[in-house]
């Protein structure tokens, strides 16, 4: 009898209560609010009338608004791709038995434990018209590239992507390092005996063996990239001319305009995108190398 009472259901109550009230409830309510015209545009009254799919129809039939969705996906995919390539490169470099590799790992990891707000402020100044980056370009003779990177429409999005990649590459590197350290040296010895080139060793031994790490890192990159908010908010706040507006920032802007129903609809779209890419990434990368 004591066996039954020792794992008391009461132990689960605080966590479940907290989680249901402030995570699950908002997630569920959000689906409902996205189907209303909930707003507080008129002073004194907050109204929420059922409008069906009107918010979604507005989003998908206005080219500037549906462009935001594609831009968010683009931001998520591009940053995920480069974070992984660079993270894996750094991991391979620092997995070798070289001096000072621990200090180097700590340096590369540092940005990922800092708030994106701080990083956004630093790079906001870094890319100013007379800021460090432009002075560097001018200093090495690349005067024609000197311009305000974050306030020029053609380069703003790419620059924010670069900052986001800079911010999290070290984190992915650490996960790749953990994956690399789990590979048994026997595989490399066998490949040496077969006379494999370094490139062959990389594609035939390393890559298949770190598939689990790739899987985690692709998911991680997507979760970070698709949901990125603070970094954009600080760097460009969606501008110039909406060229860096993502779902997360338009959600905040609609919220600021007190158009809560629209903000909720974008929230649902974000939810669906995260679910879609999350499951897709799991499906593609979750393969057993020994199968």
């Amino acid at each position: 009898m004591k066996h039954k009472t020792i794992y008391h259901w009461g132990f689960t109550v605080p966590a479940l209560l907290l989680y249901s009230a402030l995570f699950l409830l908002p997630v569920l309510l959000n689906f409902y609010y996205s189907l209303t015209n909930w707003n507080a545009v008129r002073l004194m009254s907050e109204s929420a009338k059922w409008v069906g799919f009107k918010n979604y129809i507005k989003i998908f039939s206005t080219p500037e608004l549906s462009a935001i969705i594609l831009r968010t996906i683009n931001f998520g995919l591009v940053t995920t791709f480069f974070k992984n390539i660079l993270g894996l490169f750094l991991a391979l470099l620092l997995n070798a038995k070289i001096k000072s590799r621990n200090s180097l790992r700590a340096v590369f990891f540092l940005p990922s434990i800092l708030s994106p707000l701080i990083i956004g402020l630093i790079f906001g100044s870094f890319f100013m018209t007379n800021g460090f980056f432009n002075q560097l370009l001018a200093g090495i003779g690349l005067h024609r590239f000197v311009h305000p990177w974050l306030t020029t429409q053609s380069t703003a999005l790419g620059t924010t992507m670069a900052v986001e990649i800079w911010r999290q590459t070290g984190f992915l590197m650490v996960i790749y390092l953990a994956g690399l350290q789990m590979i048994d040296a026997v595989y490399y010895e066998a490949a040496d005996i077969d006379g494999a080139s370094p490139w062959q060793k990389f594609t035939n031994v390393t890559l298949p063996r770190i598939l689990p790490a790739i899987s985690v890192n692709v998911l991680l990159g997507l979760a970070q990239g698709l949901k990125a908010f603070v970094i954009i908010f600080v760097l460009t706040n969606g501008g110039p001319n909406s060229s860096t507006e993502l779902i997360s920032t338009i959600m905040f802007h609609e919220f600021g305009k007190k158009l809560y129903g629209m903000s909720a609809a974008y929230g649902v779209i974000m939810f669906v995108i995260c679910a879609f890419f999350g499951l897709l990434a799991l499906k593609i990368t979750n393969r057993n190398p020994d199968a």
Partner: protein
Amino acid sequence: MPKRKLSMTRKKMHILQISTGWILSLIVIIPFLIVLFNSVKTENESINMLLTPPVAVHLENFVTVWKIGSILKSYRNSLFVSVTPTLITMLSASMCSYVLVRKQTGINKFYYKLFAMGLMFPVSMVSVVKVSKMFGLYNSLPGLILVFSSLILPLTVFLYYGFIRAIPKEMDEAGIMDGANALQVFFRILFPMMKPVTSTVILLNFLNCWNDFMVPLYLLPDPDRSVILQQVYNFYGTFTASWNLVSVTIIYAVLPVVVVYFLGQKYIISGMTAGAIKG
């Protein structure tokens, strides 16, 4: 290939790798150096946030910002809204995961899946604001604390769940033999055994709450209750041209994080690797 030649190429390779590593690390180091240098410059000197060393070291910038930025007050707020959720979540998640692991009933498996879902899915802040208004938690530090606690729960449950699974059930049974009740078994036997994962959880959750800017941005408009990051952002808005002072606020906001990072690097990295999916 003769052996000496091989070791020569190895050595060259080695030097190449180290130098590549350090050259690349400049990309990370330079932005931080810029902040450090400019924090002790004059306003005029820091106008473009360049990497030139300061002409003279103006440490008084730190005093100025400490006073006009009400750093102490926002430190206190930040500490309060980071430490409390960390403790709330540590307790509730460890207890919950313990029962979810040990009693694998259908409903418990479902609960675990619900928590795991929270690792990937975003929560829409407009609805969080609505719900906190419903519960009377909007624009208050306790409200922010509870929202933080629920947001960090999925990762915490995930970490504890994995750890408890590796603790043999015999441990619990030994406790029953000694006549301990459910709470005693958990707090006297199990919880002390979870020390490694608890260290990870405490450090990660503290950092996550301290570094979060989005939730306070939506949920805590009252400037009197600002956390340190809000203070930095407001300061930046007011003193846009004074990059020297903005750099100082950045250092103030980052300092506790860096201290925590160097003290607990091992636990942070192991925890982040294990709970990677959450990010």
